């Protein structure tokens, strides 16, 4: 099952770079489409969080499962969710992964190991623990990973999930993206602990803090936690410190965030930072960068065109599939 190494080589690093750039490009386009009134629904963007969004879920292997939340579209890209699928979902078309029934980022594909989660936070923390329980019961070397924001850690379900996962020593990795805000509420109004990771002590599991804008570190710590879980070592809590660089959703201009905070974090842009790293290692130059960006732009273009040309579901499908056969 374990395929990826702890220290990544050129191929994987360039793969991650491609996924981060792809995530950014998809979100930039979603933002434009939303502002232009092209999408029926809302958008929740994770711009600025590419390092943890992609770095952590990249540590999963085939057969593992991922449970994202509302802002984590990018975390699904390493699981094989495609740009076409992302745009089909937002455009609410019949051939989307949720058949036009689910909105924005609440999509997934069990066969590729990623859940279509729900909006209620963090309802898939217990569900991820349940997937891990199934793996444990069947003695399969598989791991579940759940994402959520720091805001969601105030909910009882979050604590219950960590506790049961710990008590039953389940192969699950809990990733919390601490991006400074829950909607308009700053972290200091959400919790008194200095770090979400400090809460791991209460559940006797390792609590790890990572620089959420350093994709190599995000990957490495996630990878360690995933393999620890796979080896029967139980759950880990990972807290990634980062910043939400756009409003809570498309309608929110986030005037409650001071401009100098945004300026500060703009300088820490995870993609720019990773480019510098790849440059230094000799893996990336202006030509190869342009090649990646051109390829991605073409893919996004294709995905939007494809989604716009795709049909809506038939109205009566509204009442179909409420129950399994």
């Amino acid at each position: 099952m374990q395929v990826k190494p702890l220290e990544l080589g050129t191929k994987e690093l360039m793969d991650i770079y491609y996924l981060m750039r792809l995530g950014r490009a998809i979100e930039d386009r979603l933002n434009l489409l939303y502002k232009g009134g092209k999408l029926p629904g809302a958008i929740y963007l994770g711009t600025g969080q590419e390092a943890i969004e992609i770095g952590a879920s990249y540590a999963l292997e085939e057969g593992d499962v991922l449970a994202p939340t509302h802002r984590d579209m990018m975390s699904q890209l390493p699981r094989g969710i495609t740009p076409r699928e992302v745009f089909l979902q937002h455009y609410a078309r019949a051939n989307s992964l949720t058949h036009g029934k689910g909105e924005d980022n609440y999509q997934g594909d069990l066969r590729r190991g990623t859940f279509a989660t729900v909006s209620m936070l963090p309802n898939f923390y217990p569900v991820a623990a349940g997937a891990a329980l199934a793996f444990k019961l069947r003695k399969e070397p598989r791991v579940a990973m759940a994402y959520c924001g720091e805001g969601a850690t105030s909910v009882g379900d979050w604590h219950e999930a960590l506790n049961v996962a710990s008590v039953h020593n389940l192969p699950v990795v809990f990733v919390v993206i601490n991006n400074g805000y829950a909607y308009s509420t700053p972290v200091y109004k959400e919790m008194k602990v200095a770090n979400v990771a400090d809460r791991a002590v209460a559940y006797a599991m390792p609590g790890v803090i990572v620089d959420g804008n350093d994709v190599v570190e995000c990957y490495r710590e996630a990878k360690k936690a995933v393999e620890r879980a796979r080896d029967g070592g139980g759950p880990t809590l990972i807290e990634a410190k980062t910043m939400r660089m756009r409003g809570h959703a498309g309608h929110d201009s986030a005037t409650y965030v001071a401009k100098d905070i945004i300026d500060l974090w703009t300088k820490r842009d995870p993609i720019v930072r990773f480019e510098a790293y790849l440059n230094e290692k000799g893996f990336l130059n202006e030509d190869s960068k342009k090649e990646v960006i051109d390829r991605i732009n073409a893919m996004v273009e294709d995905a939007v065109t494809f989604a716009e040309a795709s049909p809506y579901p038939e109205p009566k499908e509204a009442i179909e599939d409420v129950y399994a056969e």
Partner: protein
Amino acid sequence: MSTPSNRMPASGNVNGGGRRETKETLFIDAITEALREEMQRDPNVFMVGEDIGTYGGAFKVTKGLLEQFGPERIIDMPVAEEAFTGMAVGAALMGMRPIVEYQYADFIHCAWDQIVNVAARIHYRTRDAVPMVMRAPSGAGLRAGPFHSQSPEGWFAHVPGLKVIVPGTPWDAKGLLKAAIRDNNPVVFFEHKYLYRRLKGPVPVDDYACHIGAAKVQRQGTDVTIVTYGAMLQTALAAADKAQEKGISVEVLDLRTIYPLDKIQILQSIAKTGKAIMLYEDTRTLGIGAEVSAIIAEEGFEYLDGPILRVSSPDAPIPYSPPLEDYFLPQVDDVMAAIDKLSAY
């Protein structure tokens, strides 16, 4: 620990009629005004919820209230519906009058246990009042998908101990919210989010409260009664206009309160028209339509000239895609089909 406001009853004004000075007011502003006035009137009233302070709430219902009343009465909470609902119960038992705002009605489910097993189960055993209001934006029509569009009033109406209100006009939104805040029971108050900035109507300028448990005839008619509430009131009125063109006179009865139900007005209207259509946005089965039909069947059977019909959402979650959502929601044409069907009787 009873406070003066604990004993203050809601004033009458069942039909909000009479010749009173009114002001054209948006549905959302009527709600904000009710909150503001009740907080001014009674120092025991305070609010808890997510992003209700500086941000003014997800829909901006509490905009300006932090500035006026300060952070001790407009209290931002972490994402923790179960906790702050339970806290409201505790504060209510100590003589306060908390108002809880849920960001969407879909998230009121996260506080289900505190509402159903705690708030609604106290007075029955100990006779201690739990005066609290739980406000939540409900309803579909905004392409918001399965998790931001639900109309869960039926679930709550099924819980003895709770009162459930779904206003359909700015007048009633303000008057019923005031009544809810003055009521000595846990009240669940659903605000249809589609109406917030789309529906404007007259609101009395004087202090008033509507009667909880009283329906209101929003349009007089003689041939068919549509019993409805919330945003579906607009659909009912549009259908009534269309039916008028065909010479069918439709009476529209707005329930306003889902629990307690105004049996008397329901029966009075059916006695007049002999025909009943239940129109509601909640899902079809075992819901408000079934309850009203049962009341009519049990106590108004002899008034009936035809079957009682239900026009509602189907038994399914609310889909995101526009054609699916339009199919899902009851439309004027669906009501017209029911009216036509009843014309045969």
